[in-house]
């Protein structure tokens, strides 16, 4: 089969069966891309996770673009990215029509009242998981940034874009200053 078409179909399958998004799709990518198609090896998958963590955008898009490019260049990247997006695009388009029509019905209204409490619980879980992944190193620095970004975003209503840029720059400055101190200490 044509490699670009194969990329498209494989990532469409991955896109259609990844619920909850994010890291849930990594095992699926690994199985399809490494074991079944042998396009990439296990080390590449670790790289994809590392890249996705340090670049903006959903991990699904990052992974599809990366695998597509490595396998078949620019056209491959396009095909894999379109493939991974298409299932959600079609499903959400369909749902949006249904949701708009049914939202005013009492049954749906009550169901969503309950569901909102569950969404809050899911966010709390995500918050705890992310907190655990950060707190290991550089504790005072990390806690300060966490508190700062929480207060700025939640209470002072500062645009999240500025918070992201500010904290990124702050992290960069901090690491440069620390490196200088360390090299001075070694002298």
């Amino acid at each position: 089969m044509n490699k670009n078409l194969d990329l498209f179909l494989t990532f469409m399958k991955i896109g259609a069966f990844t619920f909850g998004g994010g890291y849930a799709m990594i095992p699926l990518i690994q199985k399809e891309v490494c074991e079944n198609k042998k396009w990439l090896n296990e080390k590449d998958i670790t790289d994809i996770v590392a890249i996705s963590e340090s670049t903006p955008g959903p991990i699904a898009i990052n992974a599809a673009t990366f695998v597509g490019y490595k396998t078949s260049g620019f056209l491959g990247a396009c095909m894999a990215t379109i493939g991974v997006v298409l299932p959600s695009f079609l499903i959400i388009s369909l749902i949006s029509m249904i949701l708009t029509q049914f939202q005013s019905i009492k049954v749906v209204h009550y169901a969503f009242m309950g569901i909102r409490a569950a969404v809050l619980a899911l966010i709390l879980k995500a918050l705890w998981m992310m907190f655990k992944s950060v707190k290991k190193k550089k504790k005072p620095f990390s806690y300060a940034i966490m508190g700062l970004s929480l207060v700025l975003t939640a209470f002072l209503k500062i645009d999240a874009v500025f918070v992201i840029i500010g904290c990124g720059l702050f992290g960069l400055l901090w690491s440069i200053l620390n490196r200088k101190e360390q090299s001075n200490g070694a002298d």
Partner: protein
Amino acid sequence: MALIELFLVFLKIGAFTFGGGYAMLPLIQSEVERHGWLTQAEVVDFVAVSESTPGPLAVNMATFVGIRTGGVLGAIIATLGIVLPSFIIILIIAKCFEKYKKSKAVGGIMSGLKPAVVGMIGAAFISVAKTVFFPAGLSVSVFSSASFWVFLELFAVTTVLAFKKVHPIKIILLSAVIGLGAGYGLGL
């Protein structure tokens, strides 16, 4: 004009979302509310829809807002906007990945970004909590209403389930059933 605005807003969301999913909620909430595309409650409802359907929250949200504001063309444009930044950045990085991975500058920036993302998920939690428990704004009368206590209990139960690694779709289904029971039982 509306389509260009749609494209630019989702381009911005796509370019500044780190850590995926819930970390982008504060940005999405402020943008869609400012443009009058969705209410806070609709954003929370849509998070549940997105958890129960395949695909990343960001892409789902873009498609949903796009189709509501500009039909199928709007959906395509908003989705394109959210995908484009990651697509371009990954293409650039894929060419010089080894250099990028070892870069101390990237490491430094990430040491600031990761905790910032935690703080932003915390902000999302606070804002969704307000929507769930105080839909009509903060007031003392809320504490005497039955629905407040039902939702507090439901939140406690679903939190325990979430931490016990029960699948999100099961949790959402269960809470929908309890929401129905409470709604009809208490005559809310």
